């Protein structure tokens, strides 16, 4: 059967990978729009420390991952713009949590493999429960994102004007960071804390370069995310090497391609500006 779908582990990998690719791309579109990529990166490292801590305490690493990532997101939101957009503060959190993670690993030497899989992902080690959890959480996160889509977009493009019209910008920022934490928490065991950008930033950043409007942008990001994930898992199955490596490489080269195509399409459209000027049909919305 194609891509080893007769094996349960491959079915789990594809189900969880797809769910995570979709939610990461959709949430990541706003992460790149709001320039919170570094905060997302730090959250994944905090999540690593949480998972390593949970392993040390003989708890489910998933629990540690969710709880600590979510608390870190609340902390970022609580500290407001002072921290969530300031590189140094976020970098400090990142550094401290990695340090803690190393300590937890050092104290618990029995199962280094579990920690490795959190750092670099383990897409073929997904259990049935993890696959269902990923699909369920991703669906919930997508619904939440759809509900807050318009005020989030308005706030991301013009925060002060949005606040003036009654968008609760502080609460919405907290909500979005919470959503980001959930996304990171389900993505980290699959793609890895260190490779979170492969799904959370790579596809949306490429989509930002390829699309002129928000909805096609989000859809492009989702399509790229799914495509890269499936291709990555497929390459790992047929060729070998870790799926994380394949997905990260595909994410990188797709982004590279988008940076080349974007300016080229730019010239195309600016050449035709004089023609379309007579017919401003409001396209590109």
């Amino acid at each position: 059967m194609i891509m080893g779908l007769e094996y349960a582990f491959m079915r789990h990998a594809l189900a969880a990978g797809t769910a995570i690719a979709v939610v990461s791309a959709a949430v990541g579109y706003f992460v790149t729009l709001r320039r919170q990529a570094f905060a997302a990166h730090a959250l994944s490292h905090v999540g690593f420390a949480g998972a390593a801590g949970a392993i040390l305490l003989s708890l489910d690493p998933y629990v540690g991952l969710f709880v600590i990532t979510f608390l870190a997101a609340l902390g970022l939101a609580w500290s407001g713009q002072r921290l969530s957009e300031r590189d140094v503060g976020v970098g400090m959190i990142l550094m401290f949590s990695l340090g803690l993670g190393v300590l937890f690993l050092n104290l618990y030497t029995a199962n280094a493999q579990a920690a490795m899989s959190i750092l670099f992902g383990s897409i073929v080690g997904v259990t049935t429960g993890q696959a269902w959890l990923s699909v369920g959480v991703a669906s919930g996160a997508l619904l939440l994102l759809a509900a807050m889509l318009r005020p989030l977009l308005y706030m991301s493009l013009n925060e002060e004007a949005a606040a003036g019209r009654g968008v609760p910008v502080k609460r919405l920022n907290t909500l979005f960071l919470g959503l980001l934490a959930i996304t990171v928490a389900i993505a980290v065991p699959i793609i890895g804390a260190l490779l979170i950008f492969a799904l959370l930033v790579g596809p949306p950043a490429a989509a930002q370069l390829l699309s002129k409007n928000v909805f096609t942008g989000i859809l492009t990001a989702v399509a790229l995310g799914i495509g890269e994930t499936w291709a990555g898992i497929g390459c790992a199955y047929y060729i070998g090497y870790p799926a994380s490596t394949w997905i990260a490489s595909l994410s990188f080269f797709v982004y590279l391609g988008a940076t080349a195509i974007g300016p080229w399409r730019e010239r195309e459209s600016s050449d035709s500006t004089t023609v379309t000027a007579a017919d401003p049909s409001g396209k590109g919305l």
Partner: protein
Amino acid sequence: MPAIEGTGLTCQLGGRAVFAHLQLQIPHGGFVGIFGPNGAGKTSLLRALLGLIPLQDGTLRILGGDARGARTQIGYVSQSEPKEAEGRLSVAAFVGAAWRGERWGFNWHLAALHQAVRRALERVNADHLASRPLQSLSGGQRQRVRIAQALVNPARILLLDEPLNNLDPQSQQQVLQLAKTLTRQENMTVLMTAHDINPLLPFMDHVLYLANGKGRMGTVNDLLTTPMLSELYGTPVRVSEHDGMLSIRVGDGFIPETSHHCHDHGAQP
């Protein structure tokens, strides 16, 4: 009934009084230029009118009603350049993001959205830019598009914070002409802060001058006089006119931006 009516408006930020006991009477359809030295509270006043920062004291009525309820009818263009997408997000998408942007859930009224965006872009003479990426615009185009975003929802008051900053004289004239047209054709009330008073002289109806936590409002001729500004600043201020350009001297020094502007124009044939 005035569009904006404030009595005893007092605003403190971080323990520092920005302005105190400010009286405001801004008529419908008026074009008000707001001036004053850095830190005099020009931006704070606009943000307080919008409810972004609290007023410690005073009563504020906007469009004849409670300020809170009227805020959805205020368009606001902030001074800070908003964060923008790094990619190719179009002008139409940028403007459209504000249309009923405070509402939750999905927007199903795509036809109405397109209509509102096109109408807003037409009003700022930027309809031909609709499908251009925001990043590719010049400074003047970008400022007009930002005004279009503020107009995409029905607005009767427009607050423009330093919209002329970093624009060449021609683009400044376009923004000023646009604001003037909105006041005359749509009876919109426009409040514009600016550093240099001279570009606004042919356009504005009223001057609001803020200094030392106090404010005075009046016509250009009434307000921009040596005694008025001396009282406001608390030190001798000289207002003089050369070739239709005002220069304002505080104490022994020029206000740099005003004198600089005079100098620029003097150099032109």
